[in-house]
């Protein structure tokens, strides 16, 4: 090994790949293990929205999400295509209290009225008021994972399609919910999403529709394809979507523009987000293993900060705020 430490990353989801990429960018030698093979439908990051929206998320998250999330735009921007078109948040007239509440709980937006909404997104009709977060962005999570995968391969990182052998040294465990047997305070939070195709509607940026019971976001994937998401249910049953969730997601899309009623449903996704009790990610070192986990609904938003925290610990023995246990 020429005296160079070989780091073994276990898990090729968004956490594992961002960590591998960060380590390689700092000159480390890395290999990746994932029995599921290249990024795909087996990992929960395949089903993400891909919104880089720290100001919107701050509405219902703790301060680190806003601060740590802001670096994600530039981190991803050097590795995949990032669409910097902002986020539009709207509510129906009857739900304007929810819009006012949302605006009080965060910042980084401009109030927009009906003509301004129509200028941003001509296909959004009938919303009297909205909030425009111009500094936010989105990416296609599947493309982002595959871009990282290919870059890492071209940089000499070997991917092993198998379980990591036991007794490996210098391991970084990014197995998400599969690490629950060792990370006992990890839980799964069910998320359900749909991918639909509706060329009749053109939206250029993520739109969030506030609603007291069924909030929705819709993320354009290009070519008339949209991702609708996502439910947040304290359940650990990821077997399938419920009729209720599907009904709510589609009703909310229909409320945005009735033309969504004619959309084709391309995919239905259900998975469990790994989360710690405060819904913030954690880095823990136990012996030769560094655990990086708990990205919750902030996979793409917080993975770069998590990766930097892991690299700081692994390579420089520096403790970022995400490290809550170190028993090296």
């Amino acid at each position, binding site marked *: 090994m020429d005296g160079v430490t070989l780091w073994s990353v276990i898990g090729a989801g968004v956490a594992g790949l961002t960590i591998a990429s960060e380590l390689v960018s700092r000159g480390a030698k890395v290999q990746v293990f994932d029995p599921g093979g290249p990024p795909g439908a087996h990992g929960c990051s395949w089903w993400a929205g891909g919104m880089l929206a720290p100001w919107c998320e701050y509405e*219902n*998250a*703790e301060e680190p999400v806003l601060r740590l999330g802001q670096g994600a735009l530039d981190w991803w921007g050097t590795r995949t295509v990032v669409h910097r078109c902002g986020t539009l948040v709207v509510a129906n007239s009857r739900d304007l209290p929810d819009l006012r*509440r949302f605006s*009080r*709980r965060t910042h980084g937006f401009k109030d927009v009225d009906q003509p301004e909404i129509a200028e941003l997104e001509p296909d959004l009709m009938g919303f009297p008021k909205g909030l425009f977060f111009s500094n936010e962005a989105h990416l296609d999570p599947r493309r982002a994972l595959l871009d990282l995968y290919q870059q890492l391969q071209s940089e000499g990182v070997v991917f092993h399609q198998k379980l990591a052998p036991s007794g490996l040294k210098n391991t970084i465990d990014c197995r998400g919910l599969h690490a629950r047997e060792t990370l006992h305070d990890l*839980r*799964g939070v069910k998320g359900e999403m749909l991918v639909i195709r509706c060329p009749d509607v053109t939206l250029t940026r993520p739109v969030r529709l506030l609603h*007291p019971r069924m909030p929705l976001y819709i993320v354009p994937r290009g070519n008339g394809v949209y991702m609708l998401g996502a439910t947040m*249910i*304290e*359940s*650990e*049953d990821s077997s399938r979507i419920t009729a209720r969730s599907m009904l709510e997601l589609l009703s909310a899309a229909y409320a945005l523009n009735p033309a969504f009623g004619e959309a084709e449903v391309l995919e239905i996704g259900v998975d469990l987000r790994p*989360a*710690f*009790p*405060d*819904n*913030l990610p954690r880095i823990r070192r136990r012996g030769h293993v560094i655990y990086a986990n708990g990205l919750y609904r902030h996979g793409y938003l917080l993975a770069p900060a998590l990766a930097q925290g892991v690299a700081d610990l692994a390579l420089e023995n520096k403790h970022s705020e995400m490290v809550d246990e170190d028993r090296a």
Partner: protein
Amino acid sequence: MKTFYGTKLPNPLMLGTAQYPSPAMLEKAFRESRAGVATVSLRRESGAGQTFWQMIRDLGVLVLPNTAGCHTVKEAVTTAHMAREVFDTKWIKLELIGHTDSLQPDVFQLVEAARILTDDGFQVFPYTTDDLVVAERLFGAGCEVLMPWGAPIGSGRGLNNEYALRAMRAEFADVPLVIDAGIGLPSHAAHAMELGYDAVLLNTAVARAGDPVAMARAMMLAIEAGQLAHEADPIEARDMAEPSTPVIGKAFLS
């Protein structure tokens, strides 16, 4: 304080467990609120919310499972049975929604489900309106506690019909009555206690506040204040000033 099916509450606050930014925040809010009862919804978290349910059990307070989101007697009864297994309690907060937008209780189905569940050994806490006739029917169905609404769920409008809630309190002086739903501010919760209600159930007002932990404490203080005030026999409101210092010897008659 009255007992709820023989159980004395440590504190008249019942706090819901939905919609918090995180379970950690939920736990902090509970500690700060000193709530004696946690309500938990089974329907949306059905199947396998084991980790979440364990967190609720670990709060160390009485658990009142509910049938939130149920629209039919059959759904509500099934959910109640599931709740009894998961939380090992006979208590069930019976919620039967009759109207999608106002989430107003369907009182006809409520009475029917209450009877079925009572016959099956449950101790039913029905979420009802402020209608006295419905209240009588619920007693007839075996309920020994009533939970009339202050205002629609999550609306934060406070006590919408004070007259009706006063009438209910006066009519059923010996029955434990809980204001359930509609509380937005500590003053609303204090108001309910001042009217002589035995407890207040709230969720959204705390969970969706900017600082849920601070709001939990504010609600606790307000409920305590309202309860103390009720017990202290407040003065009657009147139209004219009543001097608080003696007026004899002063030229108050002109």
